[in-house]
């Protein structure tokens, strides 16, 4: 009897802890969503409400009235967030494979150099990169973000970790069948890398979608801005003082990443498990 009581008390504590954690983590998002449906008067009132009295779609209609502004940010964000992960994977996958499995001179030096770039603050390289991008004529052009986003030390590191877990017998079998290193990579190893490719595509999409610093420096015209920078000026761009418009814009920005997250959630977790992230 006593044991049963203790058991239920324990379960209750667990449930309570869960509720507290979920509330803390979800409240800001709930607040964003609810505020986007409030009227400006209700938003501004001194005693806060936790649920809108009357649902107002003014915030959203203000955005759709001038959809070219928000749509422009949105389109630019989609463009870079799709292009960068694909190009980054295409460039980093063979490099990571070579660093994990092929033997050539300076291999370790190259890997250490690549990794140490994780420690170089983005604010350091941005001054020179700004000049380079200006010389290429890509200022105020989203393609600047594509160029700057292709190399990623984290991506290389994760991929290299993954390749070093694959059994060597695979490539030896390929060699017996007459594959050279390139064919081995293309026909034997690359098809097996689906889990890590999936992880990288998701992580990179997410990273680029949310990137703020580089676009802030490179994109000064409203036409060229991606969402994270665009959102900081959207009230001015829409000529409004209404904070519910901002909340509506923020909510709409979250939708694509949340869809990607919930659709690919299991792939992401499985991929991280396979990679076995550790030092």
């Amino acid at each position, binding site marked *: 009897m006593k044991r049963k009581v203790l058991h239920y008390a324990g379960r209750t504590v667990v449930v309570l802890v869960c509720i507290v954690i979920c509330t803390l*983590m979800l409240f800001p998002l709930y607040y964003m969503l609810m505020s986007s449906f409030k009227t400006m008067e209700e938003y501004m009132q001194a005693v806060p409400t936790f649920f809108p009295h009357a649902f107002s779609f003014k915030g959203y209609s203000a955005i759709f009235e001038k959809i070219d502004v928000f749509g422009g940010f949105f389109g630019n964000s989609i463009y870079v967030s799709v292009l960068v992960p694909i190009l980054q994977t295409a460039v980093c996958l063979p490099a990571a494979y070579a660093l994990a499995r092929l033997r050539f001179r300076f291999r370790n030096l190259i890997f250490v150099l690549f990794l140490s770039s994780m420690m170089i603050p983005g604010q350091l390289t941005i001054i020179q990169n700004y000049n380079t991008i200006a010389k290429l004529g890509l200022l105020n052009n989203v393609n600047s973000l594509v160029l700057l986003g292709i190399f990623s030390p984290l991506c290389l590191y994760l991929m290299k970790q993954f390749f070093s877990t694959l059994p060597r017998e695979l490539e030896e079998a390929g060699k017996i069948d007459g594959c050279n290193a390139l064919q081995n990579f293309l026909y034997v190893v690359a098809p097996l890398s689906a889990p890590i490719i999936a992880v990288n595509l998701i992580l990179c999409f997410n990273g680029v979608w949310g990137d703020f610093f580089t676009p802030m420096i490179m994109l000064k015209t409203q036409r060229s801005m991606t969402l994270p920078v665009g*959102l900081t000026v959207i009230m001015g761009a829409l000529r409004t003082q209404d904070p519910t418009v901002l909340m509506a814009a923020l909510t709409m920005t979250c939708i694509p990443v949340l869809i990607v997250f919930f659709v690919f959630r299991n792939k992401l977790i499985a991929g991280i498990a396979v990679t076995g992230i550790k030092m």
Partner: protein
Amino acid sequence: MAAPKKRKRYDNIGYLFVLPAFLFFAAFVLVPAVLTFRLAFYDWDLLSPNMEFVGFDNFVKLFRDEQFTTVLGNTAYFTVITVLAKVGLGVLLANFVATRVKGKVGQFIMESSLFMPIVIPMSVVVLVFNKMYDTEFGILNGILRLVGIDPVGWLSDPDVVLNSIIVVDIFKGIGFFFLISLVAIRNVPKAYFEAAEIDGASKPRQFWSITLPQIGGTIVFLFITAFISSFQIFDPIYIMINGMFGDTKITISYMLWQQAFFYRDVGYASVVSIVIFLIVMAMTLLQFLLPKVLVEGDAYEA
């Protein structure tokens, strides 16, 4: 290179594999970094075609700058608290969800709610918190008013603002640390826990003696990534308090940005960036090597 008789086989095609990545690395990381280090010895305003060689003047200026001490203190405070909170809470929560939360639904809810802020762009999180922190219309002061406490200047009070940003950073970042530790804990062989159960080891004891040593390598990785990102924190500071405190330099990478793009003192900014680079490198090496010295078990894999 090694034994003279047994010629080592080289896969020279490896260079071809690495080449594209190396070109991008050289163009946008290596060369800019080296050029910026060189700028530390010059006086340059970002625009004019001439730059003046000033030797170690910029370094001397930094060591004489009293605000730099404040900035270092602020950055250290921010980094210590956020790293400990993100890694510590992340691992504890992961252990909690893995061992105490029963049922697929419960685990799904916990995982999703902890992980959701990670996928949401930092600028969205910051702008939402900005509104929540608002002294007049923000919900936090609204709640305080309901219970009869004086409103707090979450972002306007210089003594509070750093803590407000710490909360944002932990909120945004904890999911990553939680998820990576969760996956690592689930990968620990079940048999270890079953054996411990038979021996009568309590849950906390199992966590301390089995889980922690088993996921040691993962924790080192988490500490290093947490440190690198926390020490260079920039986005929330820029969006939340840009220009609000005049010359108050909050953290080191914000100071770097301010010197380079606001005061256009590129040489001085380069010195700051060298300091950031050296500190991050030293701390990363320390965190990487320390556990190797302390822990010499086979559970720890390099």
